[in-house]
């Protein structure tokens, strides 16, 4: 009797995992095919012949891929730190300090993030040029921080809202000031929320395309998605190179996600129980 619903649940999970993983599986399979295999008709589901040539090729001929990945990592890391620092302070102020009109401010913050990033390009480009921020890490980090801060504020504010307010009140009675409470009570208790938010922001930044394309014009400063998509092909798009590079580029993200997976789940489902 117990088995039936369990079975249904597992089937559902399997299907949804398959649906979300299929593109990645296809990507990995593509990176293991020859050029002929990629263009074969009917399409090959199992690489035939199976080859690691693409990986060897890319490591031998395009060492710049590692630079792209490194750039993405630096920008992603910097963006994550900035958004978490500012996002948590803003989120705490908005959710807990009894600010007037906090609700309206939250909506306003959300509204700002509704602009498509492309619309920001002209103003960002000109100002970055003016201040010498083009082709710098800090430049793209600032741009990405601006882009993803609303998300971080919302995410963290909702996490803070789930903490029992009495703990903070007890801390106030014990003699802590607002900043001290934030630092030594709220942050430690919101750890899962920080990890989840940080990771998602990191991934957003890692994948962000339009701003990275425009603000990083030198090849040596390009981020992974931009660099990979600009791989020159002689006659056609070099799918084998692109898919292989992409697989390499998502490895760091997969690793980080695996490390923090417990906190991410905790952060995303905060307040779901109790």
């Amino acid at each position, binding site marked *: 009797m117990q088995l039936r619903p369990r079975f249904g649940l597992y089937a559902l999970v399997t299907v949804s995992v398959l649906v979300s993983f299929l593109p990645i599986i296809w990507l990995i399979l593509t990176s293991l095919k020859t050029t002929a295999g990629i263009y074969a008709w009917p399409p090959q589901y199992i690489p035939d012949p199976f080859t690691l040539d693409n990986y060897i090729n890319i490591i031998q001929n395009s060492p710049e891929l590692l630079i792209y990945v490194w750039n993405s990592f630096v920008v992603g890391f910097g963006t994550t730190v900035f958004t978490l620092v500012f996002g948590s302070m803003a989120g705490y102020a908005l959710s807990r300090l009894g600010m007037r009109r906090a609700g309206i401010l939250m909506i306003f913050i959300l509204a700002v993030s509704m602009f498509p990033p492309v619309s920001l390009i002209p103003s960002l480009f000109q100002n970055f040029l003016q201040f010498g921020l083009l082709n710098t890490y800090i430049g793209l980090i600032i741009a990405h921080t601006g882009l993803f801060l609303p998300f971080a504020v919302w995410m963290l504010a909702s996490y803070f809202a789930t903490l*029992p307010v*009495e*703990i903070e*009140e*007890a*801390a*106030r*009675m*014990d*003699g*802590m000031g607002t900043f001290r409470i934030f630092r030594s*009570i709220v942050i*430690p*208790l919101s750890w899962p929320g920080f990890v989840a938010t940080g990771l998602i922001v990191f991934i957003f930044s890692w994948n962000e395309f339009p701003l990275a394309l425009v603000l990083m014009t030198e090849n040596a400063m390009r981020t992974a998605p931009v660099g990979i998509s600009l791989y020159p092909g002689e006659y056609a798009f070099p799918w084998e190179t692109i898919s292989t590079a992409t697989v390499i580029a998502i490895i760091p993200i997969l690793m980080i996600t695996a490390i923090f997976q417990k906190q991410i789940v905790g952060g995303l489902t905060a307040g779901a129980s109790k």
Partner: protein
Amino acid sequence: MTEVKLKSIGKSYGAVAAVQQVDLTIKDGEFLVLLGPSGCGKSTTLRMIAGLESITAGDLLIGGKRMNDVDPKNRGVAMVFQNYALYPHKSVFDNMAMALKLQKVAASEIEKRVGTTAEMLGLTEYLGRKPAALSGGQRQRVAIGRAIVRTPDVFLFDEPLSNLDAKLRVKMRMELQELHDRLGVTSVYVTHDQVEAMTLADRIVIMNKGLVTQVGTPREVYDHPVDEFVAGFIGSPAMNFIDLVRNDNGIWKTACCSLALPSLPLDTSRLLSLRLGIRPEHIVVNPDDEKGAFTYQATVKLDELLGADALLNLKVGDVSLLARVGGMDYPVKGDVLKIALPEARMHFFNPETGLAYDRTH
């Protein structure tokens, strides 16, 4: 000497008045209980004393000093919360030591004070644990300990026992009583449990709708409720109320006459209607002596054994009365019996205003 004085204190959230005009003096060393139904403003009053809620009207004096705008940590008050509000990521020791650390008390002194308090509360062996690894009762003890180590001038409790199961609640209640006897610190205790209020309080403050209805010792509020609200709120099960009108012959009766009282122990010359109150425990079933009482014939509609006591649902004509009798050999459903309503135990209220009539005039 730490006396807490609330001078016409009020709190409004915009147009909503959570607490209106509370005047109260909590004497040095007194255990004062704020009692009232949910939403009556007990917590708000307590939190204004604590400094967690701004005071929108009136003055708060602690030890003679005006505290309206003083930071909570400088008011000399410590608070115990309903849900304990311990720091989940810190050990029991650190939870209890936090305030002292923030006051920059020397580590050896902290060690000593936390140690003594932990011993007093039976927490010594748990000092290294995190709150998650404690039972509810132990957590509440830690919360109390956290308040004690600070040696505050005033303790504030907001329903500290309501998250505990009934048995543990009784135990902790007694511990709190002992603790107060030992420390003698001025305490304000919020609860909506009247047993807690009756047993712990030196004086009870009964609040309703943001106002203080009555302040008095447990005896006073039980014996002399100032109005129908207090009369009905204090005592369990609640007081019986019977509406009476005076007929042309000057006799007080229920509207359709099933219960008549020839004379009342108060001056009723100017009254046409009133509400009689009598507590279930004061109705005498099968009386031996009928002096100073009105007697009636009643039918038992329902009997419920509570253990030591039993509750009888009685019908006198069309009037329903709840009576509380001993749990041995009590009348059962269907019995017809005689009951007496002792005159001395009656309360009389104005049916319009709910205020109690003074029996002496």
